[in-house]
């Protein structure tokens, strides 16, 4: 069974884990997050409780999953980086990006390109979100979509976020994962989650040839 990593177990990563649990998944999981539970996390990360404030998110989430999740769960209280990603993502088949940190996301993408592994991008801000499954060597990369010079955008502590929108993002990400796993995902899809309108828009991309990771192919 392929091991999955969830990097960031906050609003999107946590909802994704809740979804895997609810759907009866059995894949071994590695939960990677350096942060501790804060009071302001509680409205959009409802698997945490007030009694968890101050505890590492990865450990608390692993505890919650230990009640009923059918696969192995390993927490890692660490910030993923270019330097440690080969170690933290060892034996991982696919990464779910649940971080809101752009350099961490870039480290996941670079790891995926080096090891020819797929990864699933998730983001949420305000009432909107996005998700896409990236496959190195097939279709666009993050830089093709958003530009190679993009910097960190606004965080949720600057723009706000509504918790259930992150659940909708996680649901779409899980759908991409399941379709990828069964070989049914053809081509590239960027899914735009409209939390105000209650609907998902799918943007399909043609493979124009990614040039950002060409030397690694």
């Amino acid at each position, binding site marked *: 069974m392929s091991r999955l990593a969830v990097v960031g177990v906050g609003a999107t990563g946590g909802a994704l884990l809740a979804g895997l649990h609810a*759907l009866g998944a059995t894949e071994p999981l590695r939960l990677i997050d350096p942060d501790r539970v804060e009071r302001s996390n*509680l*409205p959009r990360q409802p698997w945490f409780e007030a009694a968890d404030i101050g505890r590492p998110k990865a450990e608390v989430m692993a505890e919650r999953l230990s009640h009923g999740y059918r696969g192995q769960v390993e927490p890692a209280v660490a910030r993923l980086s270019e330097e440690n990603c080969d170690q933290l993502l060892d034996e991982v088949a696919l990464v779910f990006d649940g971080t809101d940190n752009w350099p961490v996301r870039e480290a996941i993408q670079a790891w995926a390109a080096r090891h020819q592994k797929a990864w699933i991008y998730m983001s949420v801000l305000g009432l909107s979100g996005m998700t896409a499954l990236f496959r190195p060597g097939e279709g666009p990369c993050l830089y093709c979509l958003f530009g190679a010079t993009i910097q960190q955008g606004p965080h949720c*502590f600057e723009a706000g976020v509504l*918790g259930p929108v992150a*659940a*909708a993002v996680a*649901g779409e990400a899980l*759908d991409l994962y399941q379709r990828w796993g069964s070989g049914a995902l053809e081509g590239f899809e960027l899914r735009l989650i409209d939390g105000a309108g209650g609907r998902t828009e799918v943007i399909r991309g043609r493979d124009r040839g990614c040039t950002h990771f060409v030397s690694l192919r």
Partner: protein
Amino acid sequence: MSLSDELIDQYSRQILLPEVDYQGQERLLQAQVEVAGPEPWRSWLARYLRAAGVAVRELTGPTDQLTVEGGGRRWQRALTPGPAALTALGYLGAAVLLDLAQGEGAQG
């Protein structure tokens, strides 16, 4: 009601949203709803609504949809098996919170 510093900290990411704002958070903290639908999705929806400040009562209900009633309004979303159920839960929860925060369906 006015919100304590602790509540403002707790709900700050929602209060920051123009669609919710301080007044909307006050409305959420006074709102009461009933949630019905199949498990585990009903519990997850209830968790999200409670975490946002809403008082929630859970009821058994239809197995193919999630419904929320409160403040003279009713929201519902069909459920299909698989990850789409999580997506539906998310969209339904967002709609309920936005409407309650904006005072839709409530008096005053």
